[in-house]
């Protein structure tokens, strides 16, 4: 089965059995969306919450959680997914240096949950927060998300 790594700030949607991966996720947030009837899904590797977007900056930049979700919804709809049936999973949003008191990870998680709620998308599972990195594998056919940690 084909595998495709989704790098920071990028989104990929697949309906052909691809496994989508994101390696070494820290404060970034991986958002997966899956349509269990059409068996297609997408993975976004977002970096930042929308609140950190500079004024005047392109609102479609998929490094931001809201724009990444919008982009996935658009692509999934174009491939025939029923957005009313989508289920979401979240991985990441850590703070790798707790002493630095960075709130990027936490804000990523909060903003993604807010966006999903506003789109009426059910959050099926999450592995978020803490101070540990995670790697993600998303099977676009089954919707199964596998999380790997080194510790």
């Amino acid at each position: 089965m084909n595998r495709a790594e989704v790098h920071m700030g990028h989104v990929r949607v697949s309906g052909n059995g691809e496994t989508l991966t994101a390696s070494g996720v820290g404060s970034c947030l991986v958002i997966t969306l899956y349509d269990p009837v059409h068996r297609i899904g997408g993975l976004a590797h977002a970096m930042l919450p929308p609140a950190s977007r500079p004024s005047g900056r392109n609102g479609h930049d998929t490094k931001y959680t809201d724009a990444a979700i919008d982009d996935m919804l658009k692509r999934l709809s174009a491939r025939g997914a029923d957005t009313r049936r989508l289920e979401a999973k979240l991985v990441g949003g850590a703070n790798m240096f707790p002493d630095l008191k960075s709130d990027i990870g936490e804000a990523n998680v909060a903003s993604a949950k807010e966006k999903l709620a506003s789109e009426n998308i059910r959050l099926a599972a999450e592995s978020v927060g803490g101070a540990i990195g995670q790697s993600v594998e998303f099977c676009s056919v089954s919707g199964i998300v596998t999380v790997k940690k080194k510790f």
Partner: protein
Amino acid sequence: MTAKLENLSSAAAQKASEALSKLTGRPAHVEVVRAEIRPVTELVPAIGPEEVVVGVCLPVTGDATGASLLVFPKESALVLADLLAGREPGTTTALSGLDESALKEVGNILTGAYLAVLADASGVWLVEHVPNLTCDMFGAIASQIVAGLAQEDAEALIVEVEFAFQEPVLKSHLILFFGAEDARMIFPAMALA
């Protein structure tokens, strides 16, 4: 490596060698094997994103905002901790609080040496802050720093340096992260990149 970057790196290596020799009480030789300026998007492939590393991060402020990240493969960090504590290399299997403090000090030394020569060369005032240490996947550690800079600038740039500590030789990467505009102010060699 451009000639200018090579000269800066050699000067930083000399400063770091002297400071590390004092810290360890034995001759330490720091050699800059490679120095490059790259877009951050090309950073993670330089070190495997899932490679477990010990990272020492120091925020940098002053006339520019950025961060330094000293990265050791976990095994190298354990050996270096032994050397710093005067133990036989290979003794340590897990870092103690004292070991972490010693590795943070190495981060201070190497970052301070490199920032000092960059500041001298560019006239840009740079201040390093308290080091923070973590051990995890390189991608997870580096991406948080990149994300922090991406809030201000989407095109941050890095300098990557390998240091070798002799007898035994220990390799590490020192990565300096600055936003694109700050990098152009700090690295005159940027014009050649």
